[in-house]
């Protein structure tokens, strides 16, 4: 009986393990492909070792994509964090208006990002879109939203913000509701003002919750695909070609499989590094929050 007991947890994870291997296999295969010059026009590929990666790093297109990706990810994550925390703080006041609106906070987050991009594309259309129509009384009827490089990037970020701000707000609101009450009671007895309480108590204790949201948002927007694909297809020019769009164009549009995968491997390494740094920071922040709560 003893050995069967010891084996039980292993038996339980075997199916999941097999499935995981089924997903790891194409990943490994992809990694292997990057060492070759496999493409639709060359189905019998030759080994080229690290040539694909060398080409990636020496291409101007890569550095352009990397820059656009970073701008997008930092911009989207920053705006979502500020807006999401603000919305959470406003909802935490629990006024009648807030309690009603909280019930529908989730809606944009549950819409497929690609559908969200489609909706915004219709609204942002320069000549017949509703946004320019609404802006016309303010003398701003002719904005070329997705037709200029800066406009296209900002519009994409705006769609990301529309979809994902509720994500940050929901996590921050859960954080606000789970904060210990005693530090706040003590501060009230001492006659501390709103700003002091917010800066010295709310923010440090809330920060771990917000940081979890930021980690998710930052890493997800580094690998953005759906929103850009539907809204701008990377254009105009190369202005919104983020790394996953570039990988898609190389691998699927131009059918240079090996080269396309090389792009995603580089992106994967970047996401992994970002995750390591952020998670380490999270640990530090959590300890600090615990100190504040204990005081």
């Amino acid at each position, binding site marked *: 009986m003893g050995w069967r007991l010891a084996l039980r947890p292993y038996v339980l*994870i075997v199916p*999941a393990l097999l499935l995981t291997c*089924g997903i790891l296999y194409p990943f490994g295969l992809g990694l292997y492909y990057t060492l070759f010059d496999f493409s639709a026009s060359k189905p019998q590929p030759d080994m080229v070792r690290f040539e694909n990666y060398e080409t990636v790093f020496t291409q101007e297109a890569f550095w352009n994509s990397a820059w656009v990706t970073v701008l997008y990810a930092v911009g989207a994550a920053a705006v979502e964090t500020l807006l999401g925390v603000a919305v959470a703080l406003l909802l935490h006041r629990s006024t009648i208006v807030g309690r009603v609106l909280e019930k529908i906070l989730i809606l944009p987050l*549950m819409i497929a990002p690609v559908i969200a991009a489609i909706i915004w594309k219709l609204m942002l259309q320069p000549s017949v879109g509703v946004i320019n129509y609404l802006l016309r009384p303010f003398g701003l009827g002719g904005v070329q939203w997705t037709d200029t490089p800066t406009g296209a990037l900002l519009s994409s970020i705006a769609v990301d913000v529309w979809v994902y701000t509720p994500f940050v707000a929901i996590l921050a609101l859960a954080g606000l509701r789970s904060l210990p009450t005693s530090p706040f009671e003590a501060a009230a007895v001492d006659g501390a003002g709103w700003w002091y309480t917010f800066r010295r108590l709310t923010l440090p204790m809330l920060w771990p919750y917000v940081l979890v949201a930021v980690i998710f948002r930052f890493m997800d927007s580094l690998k953005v695909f759906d929103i850009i694909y539907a809204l701008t297809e990377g254009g105009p020019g190369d202005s919104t070609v983020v790394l996953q769009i570039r990988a898609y164009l190389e691998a699927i549009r131009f059918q240079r499989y090996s080269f*396309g995968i090389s792009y995603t491997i580089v992106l994967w390494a970047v996401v992994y590094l970002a995750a390591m740094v952020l998670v380490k920071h999270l640990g530090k922040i959590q300890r600090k929050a615990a100190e504040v709560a204990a005081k």
Partner: protein
Amino acid sequence: MSRTTSKKRLLGWLADAALILYFVFALFPIAWMVILSLKPANQLFSTYFSFSPTLDGYRTVLGDSEGIPFVRFFVNSLVVSLGAVALSLLVGLPAAYASARWRFKGSENLMFTLLSFRFAPELTVIIPLFVLYQKLGLFDTYVGMVWVLQLVTLPLIVWIMRSYFADLTPELEQAALLDGYTRKQAFFKVAIPLVKPGIAAVSLLAFIFAWNNFVFPLILTSNEAQTVTVGALSFLGGDRPKYNLTAAAALVSVVPPLLLALTIQRYLVRGLSFGAVKS
């Protein structure tokens, strides 16, 4: 005294106003999509808010008359999302339970490998799969889609269910074992019923994410197994933009996730944060 209260009241109003402003931003696109979907074709661009509403857009989209079999795409979305969630539950629940109950070699590795799927760029896996599926005949099939969607549903289900199982005190199951239950019965008759709300919530959330996925069906299907997210985008193509049809298709494809989302509000926090934040 009265000056500070009136100042406070004014600030309260301003705060509510700011909140309403955000929700206008959040809800207007949805409202506008509804309006656009109800417009007749000849009033698409001539008017904005005054028009004679019609269901023609929906009739066209659901009647497949644009050469886009949208009803089939809808059924496809339903089949592959349900299939993906079912497979993930079948495989993921035992694994989640095992890794919550026993510390053993390999379990943490498996858990972190699963978590890393959540953050891996999808194309890293899809491009090799695109090549592989064409060799294996899995391109544009339900099986191929259910398989690749495990990348979305499995990490979610395993991580969240692990946090639910970890919250259960082992004493309940131990009491059941003392009462003569076998370990299997303790799992099915004690542990599973206690985490049932969690299972329901995470299944719905996993369903929503599978439904909303775009990049897998974009690359790994072409017509037979294509889903609504890709289908809705194809209304934007063609020579003349068919805004009303695009809006109708978009609205039809967001109805299932939106309805489900409203039913799992309470459990969303843990689900969205992979169990990292509990409420």
